[in-house]
Structures are given as C-alpha cells and as structure tokens.
C-alpha cells in the first residue's frame, strides 16, 4: 500500500462503505414507528368516503363508549388552536386548510375525525363505529372539471390556484406562424403516488407547558420545528423535532401536513404521547400526490432545424389542499434553459380539484424535460434530422457561455452537450441503427431514446426558507471528530458523504469522523433534503468548517511544538512537523491540551477544538446530463423491455460515486414507474381506483435494468466543486424512456405522449386504433396525441411494414347459442331477510355462460357478474351494510317466475322469490 499523498483527496471520490448501512441493513434503524413512549396512545382517522360535500352530522357516541377508546376529536376540538397550515415557503396558502375537515369535505380520504385509543387496532375498530352523514355534491375531479365546475373552495373567485403568463402573444404567434417548421403536441403526465418505503408518521410528546417534542418522518427537523412554531404561533414553547432515520421522502415530507398537525394538536390537548403511523392504504389515498399535468408545446424551427420560438400552454391539477397552491412556474423557467431558444412564451395554470393535494416530488418541474425532449424527437422526425443532431444544433455548449436565457437565467458552466459527447463515447449509435433495421425485418421492434437536460440544484438565497447549511465540527479530547450538521438523510447517506469531506479536509481517518443530524436541538437551521442541495450546501459547509478547524489545530500544535504553523500538517490523525520527526504527536495529545490545559495555548486562542461555518453557496448550481436507453417492444402484446440504459451526468466533483449512482438509479427507477406502470386515477365520483400495491404498480427489481454510469465531473463554482444530484434521474428518465419507445414504434407513425404507456396503450398505438382505450372520467386529453399523428413517415424510417395480425377480426361475438331459458330482462323480487322482507328489482343480461346484471334496492344500485347454467343463475354481491358481507345468490327460473335462496354469511340463508316485469 502506498502512503497517502499529502493534500490529495483520499476520501472524496471514493466508494467508501456507508456509515448508515450497518444499522439500516440489520434492521436497527430508528424510524418514527420505532419510537415507543410510556403511556403512548394511538391515532386512527375517520376519512371522507366522498369527494365533495357537506358534513351534516357526526355521531361519535357509540365509538366513544368502546373500551380502550380515550378520546374522539373533530375539527371543533382542535379549534382551541389557531393553526396556520403553511406552504413549504412558510407562507400562507391563500385558502383555508383545516387539519381536520370542518363543515365540508374536499376529497375522498379527507380526515374528518380522530380516534385516540389504547392501540391502533382498537382505534380502527372504533373508527368504524363513528357515523358521519354527508350531503354529497358532484365533485370537481379533472382539470377540465376545474375550469367549468363549481368552486372547490367556496368563497374563492375561481378554481385557478395560480395563473401566470399569456395565452397568446402577438409577436410570438407571428414568429411561430411564419417558421419553416412548426411542431405541436400535447403531453400528459398522470398523477403518481409518493411511495416512500416509510410512510408518513408522527409521535408527539408534550413534556410541560413549554416543552414539545415531536418525532416525525421529515426532510429537515429544523424546518419542521420552524414550521410548527410559526403554524401554531407558539414562540414561547421550546420545540424539539427529531428524525433519526427516514425511509424516503421525495417531497412528501418537506413539511408536516394535515394529519401530522392534527396529531400534534391532539397531543397538546390530551397531554399524552400520541402516535400516528400512516398505513399504506392511507398513503395511497390520502398522502399528498404528485404530477398530473398536461402541456401543449409548440416549437418553431428554421429550415436547418434550429430553434426559433416556442410556446407552452400548461395545466396542473393541484388537488384540494396542495403543499403549494401554485402553477409550477419552474416548468417554464427551465423549459428551454439549456437550449439556444430566442423567444419563448407560456401560459401556466394550477387548478384546485376535489382530489388529494399535490406535493413536490423529486424534480417537481420535470414536466419541462418530458415535454421538450419528447417533442424534440418528434420534431427531428418531422424535419428529417437525426435526434442527436437536432440537440447538437441547439444545445448551449461551454463555448456559448456565459450567457443569459430568454427568461433571464444566467449560465456559466452547464455541460449538457459535453455530457452527450461523453455518452456517445460509450454508445455505438450506427451499430445500433443497423441492429434495429435488421430486427425490424424480423418483426422485432428496437428503439433508442436520448435526452439531455440541465437541473438547478442547491438554490439558495432567493427564497427565504432555502438558506445555506451549517456545519459544526469538533475534535473531541479523544482526538476523534464529531460533526453536527443541518443536513438530513432520507437514505441519501449524508453521514457518509459529509464524513468523507471532513476527513479529507482535516486529515483524519474516515472511521474517526462521526456525523450527527436529525435533531432540531442540535446544530442550526437548514432546509435539509430539498432541491438537491445537501452535497453542495452541506458539503461546502463541511469543507469550510473543517478548514477553519485545521487552521486552529496547526496554530495550537505549532505553539506547543515550537514550530511554524506552516510546517505543521495533519495526516491520518497524526500531527507532523516538517523536518522534525521527533515532534510527531497524535491528534489526541494535541486535543487533550487544547481542552484540559488552556494555559499552554497561545493567548489569543479559545480553549477546545471546535468550530462552525454556515455556508451559502451561489444562488444556483447547475447539473447537466445526457441519457440513452434502448428498448425492445413486443408488438403482439405491447410490452416494453429495457435492454440498456446509460446515464452520463455532470454533478461536478463526485464525493462518493456509489452514493451518486444510487441517487441517479433511484430517480431513474421512479421514472420507469411513471412511464410504464404507476397511475393514480379517479372515477367520475372522485374515488381513487388504485388503493393497494396490487393496482398501484411500482417498478419492481425485475423492471429496472442495471444502469451504466458515466461521470463528466466539471467542478462547480461552489466550495468543493460539488453539484446536486438528488433529482436528476427522475427528471431525465421519463423523456429518455418515452423517446426509446417512440423510436421503436416509429414504423407505425405513432406518438406516445400520454403516460403511463401501458401495454394496452402501446398496442393501440401500434395498431392505430383507439378502441382499446377505456373512456374514463380522468384524462380528457389523451386522444390529442392520436389526432395530430404526423401525416408522413420520413425517409429515415425505412420499414413501415404493418405487423402480421392487423387484419384479424375484432372481438367476435360468442358462438354459443343463448340459453334456452329466457333470463334477460327486468325482474321484481322479494328477499325475506331476518330484518323483514326487502323488495328489489333486478336487470339480467346473459352472454353465453356469463351473467351480468344490476340490482336496484333501497341500498342503492349494485352491478354484479355471475354464471348461467340452464335455468340456474348464480352470482355474488358484496354489501357493506349493516356489516361487510358477501351475498351468494342461487336462483332458478321457471317461465316468468323465479325462486331461490341467498346465502348471507353468518346471517344464514334467505328466500328469494320474484317475477318478470
């Protein structure tokens, strides 16, 4: 082993083992649900089953009498506090956001009542006994609903949460109209669920009138403490917020929201420790969600494929109570920031609806990259230019900088063009094109997608809450190093990366550096894990503080050893004096004197070896990347297989390649989920249709390839040269994959701009028919992509051969003759139940052996499916009242009469009679 080089980075740039992994991989992490306090009670919420309506009556009397139930609270009980729900920027949102619904409910899952009981089981039992009457109203579900429907927030002027920009600018329209090439498309991104492994959760413990302790899954304990102080208006209370380990956040946990605030308020009312852990059903239905945007992008090019002008018309479904009721202006700010775009205009709108509110989600403005990069590929095909070439002609290169974009963003050192060059060193495009052409002749459809982007990271200084980060470092009397940082890890591994930076700067072993974070009572304010900022701001703070501390060590050691400070060096935890080997001392020996014998220190130096530095990086540090992805599509089933994925990114000086690649891979996995699998959707009544992981499909390990990584590593202007890398994969991933799919499908002339690209949709694109798509209340826009299908397939797409089965017949009617007994039609029936006779009507329809029908009764209308065998009909019906039960119908038909029995679970059998109407 060679001796470490003095002054060279020994830990920065290395794949050192993560300090967190030992406890996390052996199940010894401390998450909120691991917190158990003496006397702690548990919370369950009663949530609205309707999307919109008035609360007529809440009856908690039965639930309250249940043994083990301690309290049942409603909005009225919490009203003793004035609780200002604030946005992420700690500003008022402009609408009333109650922690618990007051007189109205605004989405399915809206928390209405809190049940507090001995344990969560009892709390859920009692929650089932709370009776709430609602006066249901027609909900506002989609963006289109929001534009024309009733007000989501009565008293507001419209359902527009925010609007910026102009719909039509005359000068811009003239530019667009007169351009040699104009490319237009509408891109739709579905709503997605924030699915951290650890759901939301909070434990509250008020320990005295002036002491409030909160354990909460969050992205910065400091930010939560500041939020609570402001939201509750309690400057005189000492608030301590703790979050040791957090299992993923993505933006969901940047601030406490309604449920957490309700639990904290209840804890202060009851003076008992309370715990609420969001379960997965709650997470998928009531935790703040993300995306749900559509954008119509128009791009004008000159005859050479150079950008001339563009306009974006953007809509965002914010839900009822979003973290920030905005119109996502960042989408517009960064739409063309990396490209030479002379003129750009936008019209950007955010809408309120009766759905769960949105929160930021890893790359909240990512829609710009999806829209721009997919439309650039469409433009390339339309103009007849290679997709790589169209980017080369328009990207801002190093030589073009410094420059300022048309929206005023100053660029000094972005490198998307250079990332693309590096990417193409590892990807043989001509070889792929040859393989693709050969495969198409065999009816196999390969596609290559490429995307480029830049991302603003570590934004600081312009938005109040986005401050710098603080590093406090001390060399303990033992010679070991303890650092307390305002950073926070949701899996990012900041205990590792910050220790690497500190060990390098100070000259101590990596193993000797311990990093503490996750407690608002330690260190100082920092917004934590938000906006890809910790490497830049926290890394810079660690660097600066370590330098200050090293200076102090040198001065103390020089004084003690009678040497010149410039001749002192600290290396691997040992203090050396140049040219005086006998003066070598351990860091511990120096530290013991610094703490224990202040008389021996220089007169102007404070005892101890402690320092701190609050580092504020430049306002924005840009990260750049180019990605490529190769897919194969099965034209018979519409399935996409990802064959290869290369990420070429420039996040400046890489502190730990394994951590950087982990961040990129995690974001790319989420991108794959968004493009192929994940979808939060609602029916026309605003009911969520994917409420478990059976229906809400996250990418599994089998859906995510091994990513190849290339690092460009252009040092930034910030201390240490770092750039943020937390969100990039989630931003550049979607267009990369969509472009690969579109390339594979190019023989069919298809545009794929409506996420997620499910097998059903891809087959529809391949076969050029729209009948595969189920019409739903959600997603009025998707047909737009099919409507403006390019009229001509360009010469660069050689084999536009239709696949073999295009001529196959459609959905042939069943050949089996209808059953001899006439079943179809309307029947009236009486069911003899233990509670008395129940009249109902039924409509039956048969199709071969399949029976479908509807029962109409006082309990409402219910559809069912069952089976026909001769004159026997059998079907099952689930009912929820008076208890959850499956009714098994077994009915014989004789002419115009029917008779039979209904098995009603533990209520036994009931007789059914009826006649044809």
């Amino acid at each position, binding site marked *: 082993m060679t001796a470490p080089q003095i002054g060279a980075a020994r830990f920065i740039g290395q794949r050192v083992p993560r300090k967190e992994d030992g406890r996390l991989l052996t199940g010894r992490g401390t998450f909120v649900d691991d917190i158990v306090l003496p006397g702690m009670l548990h919370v369950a919420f009663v949530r609205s089953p309707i999307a919109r309506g008035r609360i007529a009556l809440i009856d908690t009397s039965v639930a309250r009498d249940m043994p083990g139930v301690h309290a049942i609270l409603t909005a009225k009980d919490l009203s003793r506090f004035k609780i200002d729900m604030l946005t992420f920027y700690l500003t008022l949102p402009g609408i009333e956001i109650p922690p618990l619904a007051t007189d109205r409910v605004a989405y399915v899952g809206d928390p209405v009542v809190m049940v507090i009981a001995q344990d*969560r*089981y009892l709390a*859920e*039992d009692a929650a*089932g006994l709370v009776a709430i009457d609602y006066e249901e109203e027609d909900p506002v579900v989609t963006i289109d609903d929001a534009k024309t429907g009733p007000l989501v927030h009565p008293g507001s002027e419209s359902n527009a949460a925010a609007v910026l920009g102009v719909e039509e600018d005359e000068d811009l329209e003239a530019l667009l109209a007169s351009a040699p090439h104009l490319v237009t498309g509408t891109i739709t991104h579905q709503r997605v669920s924030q699915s951290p492994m650890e759901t939301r959760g909070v434990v509250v413990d008020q320990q005295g009138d002036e002491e409030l302790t909160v354990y909460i899954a969050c992205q910065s304990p400091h930010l939560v403490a500041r939020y609570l102080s402001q939201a509750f208006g309690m400057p005189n209370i000492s608030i301590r917020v703790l979050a040791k380990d957090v299992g993923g956040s993505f933006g969901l946990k940047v601030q406490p929201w309604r449920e957490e605030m309700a639990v904290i308020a209840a804890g202060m009312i009851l003076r008992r420790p309370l715990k609420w852990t969001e*379960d997965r*059903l709650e997470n998928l239905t009531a935790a703040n969600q993300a995306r749900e945007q559509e954008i119509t992008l128009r791009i004008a090019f000159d005859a050479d494929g150079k950008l001339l002008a563009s306009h974006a018309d953007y809509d965002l479904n914010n839900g009822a109570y979003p973290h920030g009721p905005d119109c996502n202006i960042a989408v517009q700010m960064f739409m063309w920031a990396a490209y030479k775009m002379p003129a750009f205009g936008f019209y950007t709108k955010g809408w309120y609806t009766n759905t769960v509110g949105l929160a930021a989600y890893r790359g909240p403005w990512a829609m710009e990259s999806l829209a721009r990069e997919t439309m650039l590929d469409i433009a390339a095909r339309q103009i007849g230019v290679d997709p790589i070439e169209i980017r080369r002609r328009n990207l801002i290169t190093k030589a073009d900088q410094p420059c300022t974009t048309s929206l005023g963003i100053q660029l000094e050192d972005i490198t998307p063009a250079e990332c693309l060059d590096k990417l193409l060193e590892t990807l043989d495009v001509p070889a792929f094109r040859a393989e693709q052409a050969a495969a198409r002749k065999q009816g196999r459809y390969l596609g290559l997608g490429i995307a480029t982007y830049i991302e603003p990271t570590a934004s600081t200084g312009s938005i109040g809450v986005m401050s710098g980060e603080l590093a406090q470092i001390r060399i303990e009397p033992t010679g070991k190093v303890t650092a307390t940082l305002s950073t926070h890890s949701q899996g990012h591994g900041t205990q590792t990366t910050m220790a690497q930076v500190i060990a390098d700067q100070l000259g101590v072993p990596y193993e000797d550096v311990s990093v503490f974070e996750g407690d608002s009572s330690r260190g100082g304010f920092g917004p934590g894990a938000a906006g890809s900022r910790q490497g830049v701001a926290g890394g810079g703070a660690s660097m600066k503080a370590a330098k200050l501390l090293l200076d102090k060590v040198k001065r103390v050691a020089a004084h003690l050893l009678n040497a010149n400070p410039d001749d002192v060096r600290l290396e691997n935890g040992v203090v050396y004096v140049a040219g005086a080997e006998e003066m070598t001392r351990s860091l511990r020996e120096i530290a013991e004197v610094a703490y224990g014998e202040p008389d021996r220190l220089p007169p102007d130096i404070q005892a101890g070896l402690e320092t701190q530095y609050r580092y504020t990086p430049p306002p924005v540090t840009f990260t750049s990347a180019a990605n490529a992805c190769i897919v194969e599509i099965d034209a*018979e*089933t*519409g*399935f996409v297989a990802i064959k290869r994925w290369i990420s070429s990114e420039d996040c400046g000086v890489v502190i730990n390649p394994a951590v950087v690649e982990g961040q990129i891979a995690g974001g790319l996995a989420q991108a794959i989920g968004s493009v192929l*699998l994940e*979808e939060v*959707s609602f029916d026309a009544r605003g009911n969520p*249709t*994917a409420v*478990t992981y*059976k*229906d809400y*499909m996250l*990418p*599994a390990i*089998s859906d995510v390839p091994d990513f190849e990584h290339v690092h460009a590593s252009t040092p930034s202007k910030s201390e240490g040269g770092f750039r943020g890398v937390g969100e990039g994969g989630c931003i550049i991933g979607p267009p990369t994959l969509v472009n690969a799919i579109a390339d594979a499908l190019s023989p069919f002339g298809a545009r794929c701009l409506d996420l997620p690209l*499910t*097998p*059903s949709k891809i*087959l529809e694109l391949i076969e050029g028919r729209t*009948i*595969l*798509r*189920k019409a739903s209340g959600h997603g009025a826009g998707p047909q737009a992509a099919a409507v403006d299908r390019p009229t001509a397939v360009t010469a660069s797409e050689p084999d536009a051969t239709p696949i073999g*089965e295009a001529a*196959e017949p*459609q*959905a*042939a*009617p*069943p*050949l*089996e003759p209808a059953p001899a007994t006439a079943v179809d039609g309307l029947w009236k029936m009486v069911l003899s139940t233990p509670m008395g006779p129940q009249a109902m009507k039924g409509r039956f329809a048969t*199709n*071969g*052996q*399949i029976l479908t029908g509807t029962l109409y009764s006082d309990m409402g209308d219910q559809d*069912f*499916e*069952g*089976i026909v065998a001769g004159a026997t009909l*059998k*079907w*099952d019906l689930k009912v929820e009242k008076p*208890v*959850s039960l*499956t009714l*098994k119908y077994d009915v014989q038909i004789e002419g115009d009469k029917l008779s039979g029995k209904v*098995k009603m*679970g*533990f*209520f*036994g059998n009931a007789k059914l009679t009826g006649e044809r109407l």
Partner: protein
Amino acid sequence: MKPAPFDYIAPETIDEVCERLAEAGGGATVLAGGQTLMPLLALRMSQPFILVDINRIAALKGAARADGGTRIGPVMRQNEVIADPTLANALPLLLTATRHVGHHQTRNRGTIGGSIALGEPAAELPAAAVALGASVEARSTRGVRRIAAEALYFGPYATALEPDELVTAIHFPDWPPDTINLFREVARRPGDFALVGLIGALTVEQGRIARAGLAWFGMGPTPIKARQAEAALLGQSIAGLDARGIAELAIADTAPFDDHHATADYRRTVGRRIFARALQEALDARQAA
C-alpha cells in the same frame, strides 16, 4: 390496516376443523398460507369471527398417487409443488403454472389448496385445475363430496364450497407422458396476476387429438374453460390444424372486462394471439418430433 378482532384456533384434526366450521355457521375463515387472506384481513375486507388455522394438520399436506391420478393435500406449499418429484412426473403443466404464482417468497407460504379454493379469476392454479380436469374433495360434518373444478367457480372469489366445507384434497387425473402442454401468461410485472393467461393440455393418438383441456385466466369472472375450442379440437388431425380458427373459438367463450390494468379488448386481442401462437408452436414441435 389492522384486522378487526377475531378468534383463532389451530385444530390438530380434520374432524375438529369441520366441527368448528359447522358451529361457526359461515362466520369462520380457513387460514392456509395466508398470502391473500392476511392482506384482506388487514384491509378489513374480510372480517371473520374466527380464523381456523389448518397448518398443523399433517393429513392435509403432501402429494401421493391415488385413484389413477394424483391426490394433493391442500396445505402443500406452492414451492413444495414445484420441487415435488411425483408431481414433476405426473403433472408437469401444474408445475409450470405454479412457478408463475406470485413470487418465490409468497410461494414459500402460499398453498395450492388456498389458491384453488379462493377462486381468484386471474390466478394460475384455479385455471390449471379446470384445464386438467381436477376435482376438489370437500369435507364437512355432513359428509364428503367431490366437486369438479369446472363446476367450482361462480364468480370472483365465489365458489360452490359451502361455508362449513373444508377442501381436504385436490385430485388431478393422469395425462399421458406425451401430452402437449400449453402455458402462456401476460402480466404487467413478473409475479402479478395475469392480464390474460392460457393453460391447456392436449393428447394426441395416431395423429389426432384424443383429449383436450383448455382454460383461460384473467379473462372473465372465473377461470374459463374453452369448451368450444376443446370440442373443435377433439378428433382433429394435428397436421394442418387451423390454430387461429381454434383461437377464435377459444376467445368466444371468454368474458374479459376493463380494469385499471388493461381493457377487455386488449385481453381478447392478446389472448387470441397467445393462444394461436402457443397452439401452433406446440403442434409444429410435435410434428417435427
């Protein structure tokens, strides 16, 4: 997501299980592998008064040759089915289907009887039972009866089993060693329920199809026996057989629906293709042999 309160018993004998089920009058639920039941309990979609755990009963485990076929204990784990040499010889198609059930981890607990008794329409094993002509042995204090798999399913999770009946065995008839086995499944991710799935067995005697068992999963409210296709295949010479025409007949018996994952039309379109391709490839392979 905490279950509602329930009592729990784990009897040592089948008789005791039957007595408890009879006493409960429909309020009991049998716990085998729990891979479906546990989530249903947690979501409170299932709220039994009493959970009857049958995992301690040795007589419900293992597979053995019996009655000119194979008798499989319902508590045989899906991974035990995959690893069983008797079953590998007698029912290779059952093993293929079982490999597609859930994930390795869930197959360690999930049982063959649990899956067949539950009747999830998009699951592999109910369709395998229908295609291969299996029957279930159902026992109660009232006696024992055998129910043919094709008469077992009425709708999603709805079967002919009475609330007091316990599945004590699944009988699979023998199929000759040179049976042509067909299996295709299209699922969003490996381990998911099928968007569309096909399982079938064909025996050939003197170049003609002598026996056919074909069933769909994920193509309607129950596993669906492709009766018209079976009838059309019987007696047909395998040379020059019209696989697409048979596929068309097979699709005619299905009743798929639109859901969150795919449209009914997608299921029919892809079902027709995988059927025709699976049949054609199998026939080509047989003729080449």
